[in-house]
C-alpha cells in the first residue's frame, strides 16, 4: 500500500519536473517534426540475456514513452522507422515474429484507451504496404481510417519502407502522370515532392538514431537534406528524456544559422 503511494508520488514529481524542463526548452525554437530510427532492440535483448523477441517489446514501450514526451513538448509530427524493406531479408522466424508483434500493436491502437485517442494522434502508415501480409495491411488501413479525424499530433509509421523505394514510386508516378504529348521540362521538383508518400508532413527537423550508428539506412533520404542528425550511443530501449533534451538543445544551437540560410535561399 505504502509502496504504491510512494511510486505514485515519484511519478507526479517526475511529471512536474518534466513540465518545468519543457517550459524552459520552449523558450527557444522547438522542432516541429522529429524522426526516430529505433535501432538496437536485438542488442539490448542480448545484453540483458533475454530471449530474442523481448528486445522488440522493450523497444515498443520505449517508443510509447518517447511519444508521450513529444506530445508534452508540443512536437506536431513524429516519424518512426518501424520496418525496412531490407528487413524482409532477415531470418523468416524473426520476420514473422516482428509481423505478429506489429499486428498486435497496431490492433491495440484501435482501443478506446490507447494513446492515439488519449492524445488525438492521427496515424499514417508509410511504405510499400503491398509487401505486408493481408492482416497487417488491413489493420493498418483500419487505424488510418479510424484516426483520420484527429489533428493534435501526427504519427507517421514507416513500415515496409525504403527511401529509395519511396523516391522511385514518386518518380514513376511523375513520369506516368505526364501526358505523352507534354515535354520533358514539365517534370518539376514539385511533381516529385507531391508524389512522395511523406508529403503529408514537413521535413524533419531532427533525426535521432539510437545505438550510436551514424547512417541513414535508407530512411528519409530525400527529406533529411537539411535535417540535424543525432546519434546517441544508447540502444533504443534505453533511450530516455535526457537524449531527447540533448537533441533539442543541439537543434536550438544551430537553428538561427539554418533559419538565416533558409531565408537567403528564398531571396
Amino acid at each position: 500500500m505504502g509502496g504504491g503511494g510512494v511510486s505514485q508520488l515519484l511519478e507526479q514529481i517526475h511529471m512536474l519536473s518534466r513540465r518545468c524542463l519543457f517550459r524552459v526548452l520552449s523558450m527557444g525554437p522547438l522542432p516541429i517534426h522529429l524522426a526516430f530510427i529505433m535501432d538496437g532492440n536485438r542488442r539490448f535483448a542480448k545484453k540483458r540475456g533475454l530471449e530474442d523477441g523481448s528486445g522488440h517489446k522493450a523497444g515498443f514501450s520505449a517508443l510509447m514513452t518517447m511519444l508521450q514526451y513529444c506530445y508534452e513538448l508540443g512536437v506536431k509530427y513524429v516519424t518512426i522507422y518501424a520496418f525496412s524493406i531490407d528487413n524482409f531479408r532477415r531470418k523468416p522466424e524473426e520476420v514473422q515474429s516482428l509481423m505478429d508483434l506489429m499486428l498486435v500493436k497496431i490492433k491495440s491502437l484501435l482501443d478506446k484507451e490507447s494513446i492515439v485517442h488519449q492524445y488525438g494522434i492521427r496515424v499514417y502508415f508509410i511504405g510499400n504496404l503491398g509487401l505486408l501480409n493481408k492482416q497487417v495491411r488491413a489493420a493498418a488501413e483500419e487505424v488510418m481510417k479510424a484516426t483520420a479525424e484527429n489533428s493534435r499530433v501526427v504519427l507517421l509509421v514507416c513500415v515496409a519502407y525504403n527511401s529509395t523505394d519511396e523516391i522511385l514510386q514518386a518518380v514513376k508516378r511523375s513520369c506516368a502522370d505526364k501526358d505523352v504529348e507534354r515535354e520533358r521540362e514539365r517534370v518539376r521538383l514539385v511533381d516529385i515532392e507531391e508524389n512522395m508518400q511523406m508529403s503529408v508532413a514537413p521535413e524533419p527537423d531532427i533525426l535521432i538514431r539510437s545505438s550510436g550508428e551514424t547512417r541513414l539506412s535508407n530512411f528519409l533520404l530525400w527529406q533529411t537534406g537539411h535535417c540535424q542528425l543525432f546519434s546517441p550511443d544508447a540502444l533504443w530501449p534505453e533511450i530516455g528524456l535526457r537524449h531527447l533534451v540533448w537533441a533539442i538543445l543541439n537543434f536550438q544551437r544551430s537553428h538561427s544559422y539554418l533559419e538565416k540560410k533558409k531565408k537567403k535561399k528564398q531571396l
Partner: protein
Amino acid sequence: MEQMVYIVSVVFTCLALLVIPILFITRRLSVHLSFKNILRFIKLAASQLDDEEENNEKRGTMGEEEKRRRLPKHVAIILDGNRRWAEKRGLGTSEGHQAGARRLIENAKDCFAMGINTVSLFAFSTENWARPEDEVKGLMALFEKHLRSEMSFFRSDKIKISVIGNRTKISQSLLDLITEAEEATKSYEEKHLIIAIDYSGRFDILQACKSLAEKAKNGLIQVEDIDEDVMEKELMTNCSEFPNPDLLIRTSGEQRISNFFLWQSAYTELYFPNVLWPDFGEAEYLEALTWYQQRQRRFGLRV
C-alpha cells in the same frame, strides 16, 4: 510539499547555471556538444600526456592492420569550415577558401595513396549561389586556378576527373577547363576524383526523373520497368564504378548532409569530426578510416 518545490527549484537553477555556460563555451570553441566531449575535455585537462601517448600507440598498430582490413571504395567529403577557420585566424573569407583548396589537393593525394578508389568532393552546392557575390566569384576563380595548375599531376598520377552538377550557371572559361580535364583523363580507371560543382542531391534525382520521363515518352523504357538499378544509371554518379559512397566525412562538426548525395548515401557511414576543413590532415583522415573499419555494416540484416 513546500520543501519539495524548494529543492526542485534549487536543483534546476544549478543545472541551468551549469548547462548555459557550457553551451556558450562549446559554441565558441566549435566543439560538438555531447556528454562524451565534455568528459573528454575533463580527461584531457587532467592527463594530457597520457592521452597523447595512447593515441600514438593506437595509430602505430592500426597502420599495419589497415592494409589488411577493408577500406572504403568511395569516400565522399563535404568541405565545411573554411570561413570559420579564417575568422578564427583573423583572415578574410577568401584566404579561408584558399587554405581549403590547398588542403583539398593534399588530401586527395593522400586518399589515393592509401588505396581509395573514388573520392567525391562537395565543392559548391546549389545553395551556395546565395552567398555574397565576391565570395562566389572568388570560389569560381579558385576552381579554375587549381584545375589548371593540377592538370599535370592528374595526368602523371592517372586520376580520372569528373565534374558533376548543373552546368548552366558556370562561366564558359571554367566549363572549357572542365571539359578539357575530363577529356584528358577519361581513359584512366583506377583512381577517380569526382568534384561536385553546383550540385544538389535533389537536383540530381530530378534530372534523373526528367531523363527517365523522356525515355518513357520515346518508348525506350516502360514506366513499370523503372527500378533502383535503372535509377542509379541515370544519376550523375553513373560516371563512377562505385556510385554509392561507403564513407561520408563532413568536417566542422555540423551533423547534416546539406543536400549532398541523398539517394547515394542510403547506407553510407557518416563521420562528423569537429576539425575545420583546412585543418583536416593525414592524421585526422587516418582516424576517419579507423573509425570506418570499426563499423559493423549490416544493411538491414542480422550481424
